[in-house]
């Protein structure tokens, strides 16, 4: 009765799961990065009211479990707001918001890591706040942020696995399915873990390359 052998169909299934995870990760990362940066900019400009809202909202998002947020969006929106959301929509909404909240925190501390003296020099030469942000702060903040950001994205990549509970068939869910069928957890999780590892490596590699470029001006000699 039990089909414990691995078949070629499993590869198709893994590929599908990988595709779903990857697509979801990319979509939520892009939205999250944009949204999180936007929030940080709002804070940088000290836009009244909006800034407070953003702070509270980001606090809320990053301080609660993604799983719970996911449930609230997926079950809550239809039940309380009469808005029907598909599992994929719910996943995109939740994960984007969550990523954005953490991006916001990183962006804020990166902005703060830049010496006040430089900002002063730039302001005095007549650069507007926006120009200071773009030419002085952003490039250096990026160099600072790229480390934590890579860490965050790698983490978010794994967080995408939570969405299987609302029926999105992502890579982790595929792992579960195969594990259940074959009862060979080590092979299955080694393969699934390996795939996540490869995806994460790509993210980390991108981060490291970017960081090297952004830190061209300082040579860290090591301690």
């Amino acid at each position, binding site marked *: 009765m039990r089909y414990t052998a691995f078949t070629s169909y499993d590869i198709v299934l893994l590929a599908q799961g990988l595709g779903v995870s990857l697509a979801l990760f990319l979509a939520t990362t892009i939205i999250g990065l944009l949204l999180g940066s936007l929030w940080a900019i709002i804070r940088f400009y000290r836009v009244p009211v909006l800034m407070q809202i953003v702070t509270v909202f980001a606090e809320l998002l990053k301080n609660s479990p993604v799983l719970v947020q996911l449930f609230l969006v997926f079950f809550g929106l239809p039940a309380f707001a009469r808005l029907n959301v598909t599992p994929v929509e719910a996943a995109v909404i939740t994960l984007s918001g969550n990523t954005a909240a953490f991006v916001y925190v990183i962006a804020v501390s990166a902005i703060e890591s830049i010496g006040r003296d430089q900002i*002063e020099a730039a302001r005095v030469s007549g650069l507007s706040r926006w120009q200071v942000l773009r030419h002085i702060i952003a490039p*250096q903040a990026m160099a600072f942020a790229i480390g934590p950001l890579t860490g965050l994205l790698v983490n978010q990549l794994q967080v995408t696995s939570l969405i299987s509970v609302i029926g999105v068939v992502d890579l982790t869910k595929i792992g579960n399915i195969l594990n259940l069928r074959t009862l060979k957890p080590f092979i299955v999780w080694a393969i699934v873990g390996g795939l996540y590892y490869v995806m994460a490596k790509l993210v980390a590699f991108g981060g490291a390359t970017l960081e090297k470029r952004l830190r061209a001006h300082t040579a860290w000699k090591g301690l």
Partner: protein
Amino acid sequence: MISVRGVRKAFGTATVLDGIDLDVHSGEVVSILGSSGSGKSTLIRCMNGLEKLDGGRITIDDFDVSRPKELAEARKRSATVFQLFNLYPHMTAVQNIALAPVEVLKIPRKQAEADARALLDSVGLSARADAFPAQLSGGQRQRVGICRALAMKPRYLLLDEITSALDPEMTSDVLAILAKLARDGTTMVFVTHEIEFARTISSRIVFLDKGQLVVDLPTAEFFAADGGMAKPRIAQFLSKMRKD
């Protein structure tokens, strides 16, 4: 014209500027002398709107630097060279200099960078134009800082101890450049410790002591035995000058 009226500035409980009045008319070169910690840098920082005043008013060409809108105008007309250079570490010398001209004055990048190179050349730095600040010697950084201010072709130049890291050769080169700018009508406010320098270049000298402006005299009068020198505080200050 730069007008400073009754300016007060305190950090916490320490009053650093205590009712400063000072007018700098167009074309004038005014030197600010005073001992370390007397508030010279702070006064400069107030003039370009980096510190919030705790009292009084500063205008540049009638633009009040306490008002954000007017401050932007004031800053377009003035440029500052900082005591500690404050270069952008992620940009090369040329990029440091060209940034504001491109962004604020909307000069095409090509042009701005060519101008920057010309400026660097005039202070003997053409060979280091593409180095990052961390790769420059102290004096080289200071020269980049000076070029960065000059690139804005400002009407008003605020200079905070710009010769501190310069050797005598370089100092005289930079002075020559500034003297030429002064002849062309650029108004300058100098903070300096080099009294001879002040004597050579400035038309007026003011003396700060513990946040108060105790002397404000034309250069000749300041150094006259019956002028500034008559004040004991200044006589004491000047007497400590190396006798050379």
